[in-house]
């Protein structure tokens, strides 16, 4: 196995043995509890409400877990001296960074899959009929995770502490869902430097709304078929590569 494969597998194993599966268990418990409660409140629309709650929970929990793991991973490897052990061998820093990123992403996707299994089981139990849009929504969550993990890796390199990396990633995740509103604010009521700053922000923050297929479920001609998904995938690849490239640019100059 190549160095990249070993690093990726190790990162995946480390995460799966740790917090990712605890998150999945918490999610499963929450879902079961909410399915009972919401069933009483939403009456005829129980399935729709469960579908939306579940997909949103999967999205938020996986993003929180991936952000936390990306922001703390490097610091922990420095504290445990694992990083020095790896870098003292003929492993390029770019391979180390990419291996960690891929392992992290893979473990996040494993968690998403586990949560989706619980979610789909509850939905089917409640009389939901399978629809392909669900897979598209999950794929969108996966693409969002890829971008979020890359952004978190870059911000960990830039920031001086774990806490600031966590906060900055969290803010960029929120703003990423807010790009239309940012553009709207820039066109309304604001002028001059503030409007320009908002326009720039709308372009710099990751456009996570592009991957938000779960919010476009059931909208005629708007859920996006192959073309829209391929476009979202292309954006995800370019943006993630740019963030990882930036992280590598900083990491290669860092003295340990």
């Amino acid at each position, binding site marked *: 196995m190549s160095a990249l494969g070993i690093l990726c597998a190790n990162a995946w194993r480390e995460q799966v043995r740790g917090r990712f599966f605890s998150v999945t268990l918490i999610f499963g418990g929450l879902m079961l509890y909410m399915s009972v409660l919401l069933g009483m409140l939403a009456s005829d629309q129980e399935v729709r409400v469960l579908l939306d709650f579940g997909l949103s929970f999967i999205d938020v929990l996986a993003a929180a877990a991936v952000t936390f793991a990306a922001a703390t991973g490097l610091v922990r490897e420095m504290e445990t001296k694992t990083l020095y052990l790896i870098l003292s061998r003929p492993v390029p820093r770019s391979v180390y960074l990419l291996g960690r990123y891929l392992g992290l992403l893979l473990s996040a996707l494993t968690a998403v899959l586990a949560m989706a299994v619980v979610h789909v089981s509850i939905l089917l139990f409640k009389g939901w009929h399978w629809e392909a849009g669900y897979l598209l929504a999950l794929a969108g969550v996966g693409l969002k995770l890829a971008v979020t993990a890359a952004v978190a890796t870059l911000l960990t390199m830039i920031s001086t502490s774990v806490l600031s990396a966590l906060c900055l990633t969290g803010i960029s995740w929120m703003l990423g869902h807010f790009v239309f*509103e940012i553009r709207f604010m820039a066109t309304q009521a604001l002028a001059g430097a503030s409007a320009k700053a908002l326009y720039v922000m709308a372009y*710099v923050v990751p456009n996570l709304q*592009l991957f938000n297929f779960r919010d*476009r479920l*059931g909208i005629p001609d708007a859920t996006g078929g192959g073309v829209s998904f391929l476009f979202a995938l292309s954006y995800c690849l370019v943006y993630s590569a740019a963030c990882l490239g930036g992280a590598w640019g900083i990491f290669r100059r860092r003295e340990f």
Partner: protein
Amino acid sequence: MRGPVEGACLAAALAAAAVALPRTPHPFPPPSQLRLVPEEAVASASLVSLGMHRLAADLAFIRLVVYYGSPDRDAREQAEHPEEGPHDHAGGVYRDIGPRALRVLSLDPYFEYPVLYAAGALAFNLHRPDEALSLLAEALRYEPRNWKYLSYVGAVGFAKKGDPERALAELAGVLASPDCPTMLRSIAAFMCVRMGRREQAIKLYRQILESRDEGYHPNARRMLERLGAPAGR
């Protein structure tokens, strides 16, 4: 950031964003068109800003169902103070039902059920067909070809003219669809009973018994008993 690698990466990210932003589908109304009220504003705006329009609409819909399922405060207050004037409906006035449905619609304009639910309640239960029609007009702005909305418009029109037979005929398609609000089926079944359409009423009450909304089950059972029909098929 400094150095050619970081510069190239930033340029790539910006280029990707510049291409992606205009092509991102955003089928929801702009924030200025959101109908927020103080008690729900923070939760709804937060969910919308996190890209959870559907979830925000779901929560607003649950509030609508709870509102219409609870005793009406306005009616209670009027009953306690009869000198202020009579109330319109024995079960309550529910003057906020239209605005609440419009709130759901502003969060997710493609959420069909709350429109059918609120328009049905307004037109056939609360006898405010004009409010029902304005709600349907708002919903049709987003989905002009929605046949259920169009059927509703016809049915409300006939009900307004005092022609329940034709109103029921207009609603036939909606009543047959699996996602028809149980509340509408209940109203339609009652209209059938009054018009002497026993078989149609029995069919509707049996459909009500199969629905998720258990609030309507006891009445459906009672009506089936009155019509001399067993609950099962």
